[in-house]
């Protein structure tokens, strides 16, 4: 597999991972480009001590989190009425959480994931978007598997509270 094949195989997944962690398309595109530049430069130093895919995802996580820490995500403002109930929803369902989760193809939920603390957002995206297991996520984020579970549990709980309107910021 050459560099072009790596692009073919990973580009869309890396872009989506970055999009979920960073929350906007522009940052996700720049992050994806940065990741592939690093893959290009670092391929010669890759020693095969881990799987190539783990190495690539580790670069992705590091680049995404570095960018996120430098340039904080433009938060979806909970106070600006982003979650204001659409009156039409009342005709369909009386549960505000379900209405929120069903709206706009999950884009609002995706925005909330990007607002999570860095490691929680990464773990949630790797678990749900990339469908990875505990040990894979642990290897990428370089944390114990037990910590992965903690990140997932905290992340879900934080999202649930945010959706319910318990406006405690991360």
């Amino acid at each position: 597999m050459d560099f072009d094949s790596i692009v073919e195989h990973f580009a869309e997944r890396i872009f989506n991972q970055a999009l979920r962690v960073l929350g906007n398309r522009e940052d996700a595109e720049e992050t994806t480009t940065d990741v592939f530049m690093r893959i290009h430069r670092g391929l010669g130093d890759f020693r095969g001590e881990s799987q190539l895919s783990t190495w690539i995802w580790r670069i992705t996580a590091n680049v995404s989190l570095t960018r996120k820490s430098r340039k904080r995500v433009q938060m979806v403002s909970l106070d600006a009425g982003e979650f204001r109930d659409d009156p039409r929803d009342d005709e369909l369902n009386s549960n505000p959480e379900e209405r929120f989760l069903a709206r706009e193809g999950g884009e609002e939920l995706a925005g909330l994931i990007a607002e999570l603390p860095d490691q929680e957002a990464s773990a949630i995206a790797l678990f749900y978007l990339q469908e990875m297991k505990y040990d894979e996520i642990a290897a990428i984020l370089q944390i114990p598997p037990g910590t992965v579970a903690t990140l997932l549990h905290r992340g879900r709980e934080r999202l649930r509270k945010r959706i319910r309107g318990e406006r405690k910021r991360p």
Partner: protein
Amino acid sequence: MKCEEFKESLQNFLDAREERDWPNGLSAHASSCPQCRTFGDSMIALHQAMQRLPRVSPSAELMGSLKKIKQPDASLVKIGWGPEIRRGAQLLLPLALPYIAQAFSLTTTQHVLEALILLLGMTVFVMSVLKPLFLGVHERRVSLEKL
């Protein structure tokens, strides 16, 4: 089962990505605890929504720019200073050629020194040819088989 145990067990159940109804212990507690029932319903709704999160296609421009990143020789990576030595040897060799003939008719100390210089140059040349052995320069294939 206590409420805290319920919440922990429910999270572990979600982590397992099992496509089945709640385990009996969870169901039993939820049926007798409205708060945990609500918690469980909302967590499962959230879990399912995250499983359905849409995948977004990267733009054609992004894909094009990624493919324009100069492709390295991904399967063969050279490390070390072999090229520099080889270049040096190429410069030295023509200069050393006049001495090769003299080296066969050594009569003076000066010629012995010249022969030593020649020997040094030739050694550098041989080392550049046999660089994997002398300098630890090596070629390494990057295994992509583990992908």
